[in-house]
């Protein structure tokens, strides 16, 4: 499998580390319930199909990426810098952010 890094171009997946589902957002630790923190830390969906995942290009540009990948075929539809995704989320009006 190869991942097309937006900065570095197509690279072997050995240059990347996998973190997992990009959907969970860290709750405010001072406000969140124990259940919400437990959900954030431990519970992950394991979908057969398209997922948005966090990958780290550690042996390249050292950027975090959000990779949209089909877990059944490894087909990659989109790769975005995680920084851009986070910035876009920050400018999205409150309440419209979705978990998926």
């Amino acid at each position, binding site marked *: 499998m190869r991942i097309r890094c937006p900065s570095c171009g197509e690279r072997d997946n050995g240059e990347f580390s996998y973190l997992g589902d990009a959907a969970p957002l860290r709750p405010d630790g001072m406000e969140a319930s124990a259940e919400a923190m437990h959900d954030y830390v431990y519970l992950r969906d394991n979908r057969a199909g398209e997922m948005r995942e966090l990958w780290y290009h550690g042996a390249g540009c050292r*950027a975090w990426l959000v990779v949209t990948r089909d877990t059944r075929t490894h087909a990659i539809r989109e790769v975005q810098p995680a920084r851009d995704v986070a910035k876009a989320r920050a400018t999205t009006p409150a309440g419209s952010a979705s978990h998926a």
Partner: protein
Amino acid sequence: MAEHATLWRPRGAWADTARPGRHGRREGPPGLIVTPREGLALASVTAVDGAEARLAEAIEARFGLSLPEPGGAHLSGEAGLVWSGPDQWLALGGARGDLDGLGAALRGAAAVADQSDGRAVLRLTGPDARRVLEKGVAVDLHPRAFGPGRTAVTAIAHIGVQIWQRDDRPTYDLAVARSFAGSLWTWLEAAAAEFGCEVRASA
């Protein structure tokens, strides 16, 4: 209690590692010519979020070069800037001290950290230089995909390296974290053996 006089001396990153002379295949001209590059000035430059335009201006004023786009290396002789990550560059100077004052010049626009003793740099040239590198990197270095003024941050034998091409003879500069210089050299000497390798005195 005995007193110990300790004499600290600067030691090149490739001292006792890159032995000058002919290595590997003996017959014919060497396919790879290696020159350890000692005494360079190196610094990492990381843009402050939102100050990219100001950084580009300050770089232009200091180096007479524009900031390279991703994958680009803008060089003028031994000086220049090599892209090394999103909003990050490696600044180069041909001699120690050449980057003095860079931090002050870029204050507020970028974080600058001296890497002169942190990275070890080799210059690789010769008719088989590309073939040697291709044995270690999973990046296409063929002229259709790479060339003078291009850089790649990648890995050789699991060791993080940065390569930038200087000219189409071809000549490449390769930077590695200094503590990995010995390991990288072990790979290079083995990879170059079949082509014959001439190691020149450091410059």
